């Protein structure tokens, strides 16, 4: 489907910027900059160029870490270029680490950087001025160079966002932003929900930047008949990671995003009654659902709703995995919701009343749910999931699966006990996963030193007659 030339970067697209093993999500604007670690990159040169293009970071002015991007085919490898010319020791018996082996001061090194020296020149200088480098074994020299390369690497590659990449970026940066959904848990959630190109699926997500809905919409695919009802508990749905996938309009239109309270009330009480009760006649553009209580430990989210700040001018998604970055770069959803709020406020109030989008989508979802039962249901909850599953099971078809994710075990245990009493739920199972990655290198294969134990829990079952 997607051949090479078709995938050209356009303004408004999201891209993943890769610098070695470090990835960051970026929204392309006409003249946007990207902060990568401490480096500012001018991103406009990527517009109109294919995905997967590699660029060299060229210092723009000396004295500042501001770079322009130059398209390149060659990537210099420090480890290959520098190592082959240097002798090395056999073992580390003569290495004494007294903290004085590097004779260049920090100021010297910063100076080199600000003078716009290339990474090869800088690392060359570091090695020259290291008392111990030549005595290190070949293996630890390589390790040293790799480490330095990571720090001074001056190439970036522009990648097309995928669910795998964006999950990875967020999981490393701030896993709570995506409800701590680890890769294997998300993968199983997708499998157990049964989602595929065919049928109607429902997902409730109390706030994971839209990752679960985005992943399900991706599985539903472009140019298919599958539909998704994406339910959320707040005023404004989190959609950053849905937008990040650059889905075609046609595919996005098969996802209806609705507030769960509005949906259920409208389903049972009808539109008229619904508008009466909720006291927002169709003229109101904002959704003021009175029963929203976000009982979540995600302070980020509550903060975003409660304290709108001035939105930043730059539309950029900042996802940091490097510790040197400060956390103020992290607000993503806040920016989105704030931007939207301001827009709504600025809208002239004397405009002829028009049905707001949320109302249209809620009505559409209700119409679908009246005639079709869902083929699969996924719940990613920060709240207690019991009432949510009880509220949503009536919309699931019989013989169809549901799966509930929670980062804690207890709410799922209780949900299990309650569902077990019902005669219309079978095959109830509660899981937790163990995930570990491995370093695979000749003679040096072993499990990675670090692993994540925040996989959360999944409760899975089928609805029957």
């Amino acid at each position, binding site marked *: 489907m997607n051949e*090479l030339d078709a995938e050209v970067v356009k303004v408004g697209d999201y891209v993943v910027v890769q610098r070695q093993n470090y990835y960051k999500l970026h929204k392309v604007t006409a003249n946007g900059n990207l902060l990568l670690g401490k480096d500012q990159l001018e991103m406009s040169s990527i517009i109109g160029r294919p995905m997967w293009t590699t660029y060299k970071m060229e210092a723009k002015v000396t004295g500042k870490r501001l770079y322009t991007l130059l398209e390149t085919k060659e990537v210099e490898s420090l480890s290959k270029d520098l190592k082959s010319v240097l002798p090395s020791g056999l073992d580390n018996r003569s290495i004494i680490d007294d903290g004085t082996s590097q004779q260049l001061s920090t100021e010297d090194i910063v100076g080199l950087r600000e003078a716009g020296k290339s990474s090869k020149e800088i690392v060359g200088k570091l090695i020259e001025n290291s008392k111990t480098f030549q005595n290190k074994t070949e293996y630890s020299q390589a390790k040293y160079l790799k480490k330095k390369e990571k720090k001074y690497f001056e190439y970036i590659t522009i990648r097309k966002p995928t669910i795998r990449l964006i999950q990875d970026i967020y999981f490393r940066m701030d896993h709570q932003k995506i409800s701590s959904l680890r890769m294997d848990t998300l993968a199983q959630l997708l499998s157990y929900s049964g989602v595929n190109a065919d049928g109607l699926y429902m997902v409730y997500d109390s706030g994971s930047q839209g990752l679960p809905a985005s992943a399900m919409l991706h599985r539903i695919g472009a140019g298919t008949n599958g539909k998704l009802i994406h339910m959320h508990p707040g005023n404004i749905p989190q959609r950053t990671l849905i937008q990040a996938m650059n889905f075609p309009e046609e595919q996005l239109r098969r996802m209806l995003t609705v507030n769960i309270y509005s949906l259920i009330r409208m389903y049972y009480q009808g539109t008229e009654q619904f508008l009466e009760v909720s006291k927002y006649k169709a003229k109101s553009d904002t959704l003021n659902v009175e029963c929203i209580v976000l009982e979540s430990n995600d302070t980020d989210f509550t903060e975003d709703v409660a304290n709108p700040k001035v939105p930043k001018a730059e539309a950029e998604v900042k996802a940091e995995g490097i510790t040197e970055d400060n956390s103020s770069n992290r607000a993503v959803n806040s920016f989105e919701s704030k931007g939207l709020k301001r827009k709504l406020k600025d809208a002239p109030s004397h405009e002829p009343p028009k049905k707001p989008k949320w109302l249209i989508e809620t009505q559409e979802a209700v119409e679908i749910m009246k005639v079709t039962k869902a083929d699969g249901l996924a719940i990613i909850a920060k709240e207690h999931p019991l009432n949510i599953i009880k509220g949503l099971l009536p919309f699931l078809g019989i013989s169809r699966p549901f799966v509930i994710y929670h980062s804690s075990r207890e709410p799922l245990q209780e949900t299990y006990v309650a569902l077990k009493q019902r005669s219309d739920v079978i095959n109830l199972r509660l899981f937790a*996963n163990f995930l570990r990655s491995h370093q695979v290198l000749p003679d040096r294969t072993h499990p990675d030193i670090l692993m994540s134990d925040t996989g959360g829990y999944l409760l899975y079952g*089928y609805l*029957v007659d």
Partner: protein
Amino acid sequence: MSFNGSKDLVEEGDVVILYIAPSNMHSLEVTPKTLNKKGILVENVFQTVYGALKVASLVGAKYGAKVDLSRGWAYVLQPTSDLWTLTLPHRTQIIYTPDISNIVYLMELEPGDTVIETGTGSGSLSHALINAIKPHGHLYTFDFHEQRVSVADIEFKKHGLERYVTVEQRDVCQTGFGDALEGKANAIFLDLPHPWLTIEHATRCFRKSGGRLCSFSPCIEQVQRTCEKLMSAGFIEIKTIECLQRELTVQYKTVPVLKLECLKSKHTDDNRNENNGKEVGGLERLVTVSHAHSLPGHTGYITIATLPPIGRRSC
């Protein structure tokens, strides 16, 4: 024909799942008659621990309905990828849903993809791959074992999936995947004893735009050889993971509570009565889980790698 899209009612010829308990499920084909051992056509009766089921009685039943067995009941379900994996007839070792989930996720499959798989084995993974790429994608699956190829082929036809899959008998280590697939695939999956011998063939089958290759191997030596090959063939982002699913059994637990505070002072009649006249006492009922005493500690390593587009490959 019950694998391609959801349906409400059981029809003759469907493969259905008979659910008795999570650990007691069967898949069976809804045919009123079957051949007995002597090759004579007889009524199809399916035996379970709760007695017999006349298979013909399933026709017209709602999927999700309760059906009677001679000494109990069961539910009839439409197969999902997961249920099929749990009930399919084993002809080889198979891959189960926890690993399958990671494989499909890491290969970044979506409807429309062209996927190559080898070996087909019992078709457990194949069904999940087809599910992920239909309706306009295609799976090419290879096995060098003649019978496994022909049984898989029949199975796909019975399940109404033949439009989405091509099964071929081939020794892929020796002869690759055939000229017709060069430059066609955007994902390739390997589950065979010598995956590293197929990497060169596999690399040729990727589209110009590159793609993802995934290999599943039980032994670390297989992983090492494969990773080495992948590196020299120009693959990047090579990662190896293992994932174990642990089932937690929810249960009530009643634990005795010792009361030690009351020992500090002399008893009054009041607290003696509270404790039923005893000095220690009280029970607390908790909802908790128990972990399995014995469970699979290893299934296989999943190795996953990216092949960049042509022109951006390092070799």
